């Protein structure tokens, strides 16, 4: 079953399959299309509260399909400023639109300059998906 895991340019990625869209002053975070397809139907997310601090590559919640539970890892350290409340009633948005309507949290990064270099760009993430060790 070959799937096209289109990896958008301009975003940053973790090896745990989260993406980060770095905007002026805030960063939105979600999981990649590859992660969403591997999980199959997302039916429940357990998410942090606004105001909570997250640490780069620390867990900030879980995403669950019918069969499996996966931890969510923060791409960057910072404070949670928004949580996508649509997901509590429509967790399927993570599958339908992983890079847009299925965003999960927004954070204000606290150490962006130092931490950004530890993330993968779209080219590196695409190569990582093609490698055997993901």
């Amino acid at each position, binding site marked *: 079953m070959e799937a096209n895991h289109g990896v958008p340019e301009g975003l940053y990625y973790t090896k745990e399959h989260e993406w980060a869209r770095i905007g002026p002053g805030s960063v939105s975070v979600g999981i990649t299309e590859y992660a969403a397809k591997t999980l199959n139907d997302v039916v429940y997310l*357990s998410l942090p509260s606004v105001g909570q601090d997250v640490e780069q590559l620390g867990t900030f919640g879980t995403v669950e399909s019918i069969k499996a539970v996966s931890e969510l890892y923060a791409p960057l350290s910072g404070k949670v400023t928004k949580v996508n409340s649509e997901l509590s009633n429509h967790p399927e948005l993570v599958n339908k639109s992983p890079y847009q309507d299925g965003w999960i949290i927004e954070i204000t990064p606290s150490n962006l300059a130092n931490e950004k270099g530890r993330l993968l760009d779209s080219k590196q993430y695409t190569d990582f998906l093609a490698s055997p060790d993901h």
Partner: protein
Amino acid sequence: MKQTPLHDYHVKHGKLAEFAGYEMPLWYTSILEEHLAVRNKAGIFDVSHMGRVALDGPDAPKLVELLVPTSASSQAPGKSFYTLLLNQKGGIIDDLIVMRTELGYLLVINAANKSKDLAHIQANSEGYDVNINDITDSTTMIAVQGPEATQALQPLASIELSQIKRYTHVNAMVGDSRATITRTGYTGEDGFEVILLDTGLQDGSVATAVWADLSTRAKPSGLGARDSLRVEAGLPLYGSDIDDTTNPFEAELSWVVTKGKTGYIGGESLASFSNAPLSRVRRGIVLDEKIPRHGFAVTDSQNEVIGTVTSGSFSPILKKGIALAYVEPAHSGIGEAVDVMVRDSPAHGAITKPPFYDEKFFGWKRLKQ
């Protein structure tokens, strides 16, 4: 890894995973879609990995009576029944479907237990004039499940399917193969399990043609939906909800034990604890939010552990997390409030008796439209 006769189809269309030594489809398009197809219309499952063992010969009836707590001789030829293989202590070696045929018995056993069951059957057949014939690899088994299962299977069958009542079976042609069709399943829905007798691992072309034709009327479904459907129906899975330390009474399976039957393996143990108080009992739990998983603790309002989740899933019908669990009898009342510890935080729920869906609208007992 072992394969089934339909392996090529699974490779082409499915997301594969290892199960009981077989490479099997976890899903084809989506567990959710496949689950709902079976509840609302019809789905098909490749269940060829399950063990199929024929017992015949003059002493086959006596051997089956020795092996199971259900009175097998009182079942007329053509009956299919759910029962258990027990050890001497009354623990469950496997759960299975037994079909009484004209010639003897056909046992359908769990894939993961095949060699263990065969060894158990063989060891107890000493002195019996009986043939034990493992026909798993020479046959193919397909489950057709859902309220439209009859419409899905009928065009391929040489007989009128409405004459097969629930928990009975017939022999007929299905496609180009002789087949045993039994009206049973593992989803809670009406449906059939079809054993294609002339097409197996050697040459799966007839099985592949049957599957391809069925797939135009029923949605191919994988092990993911098979599991979420059976949890929603409250059906136990061997290795998760029952094993050789479980007795049939606490598992709520005492209905398979025929009253007054003696002389079967495990019978004396069952008699000794049939009147003893249970230390735990199998129940369903529905959570208000979050999803319970295997191994999570069940607690009461004082945070005391009163049980353990043995199967957890998300119910697409209730849109809630559901569990099969063993709980202390004092906390097993229907409607009793309990918590399930989901990764260190309690999730509120209530004890129920499965199935989890409303039987007026779902499952084989549903009111006909």
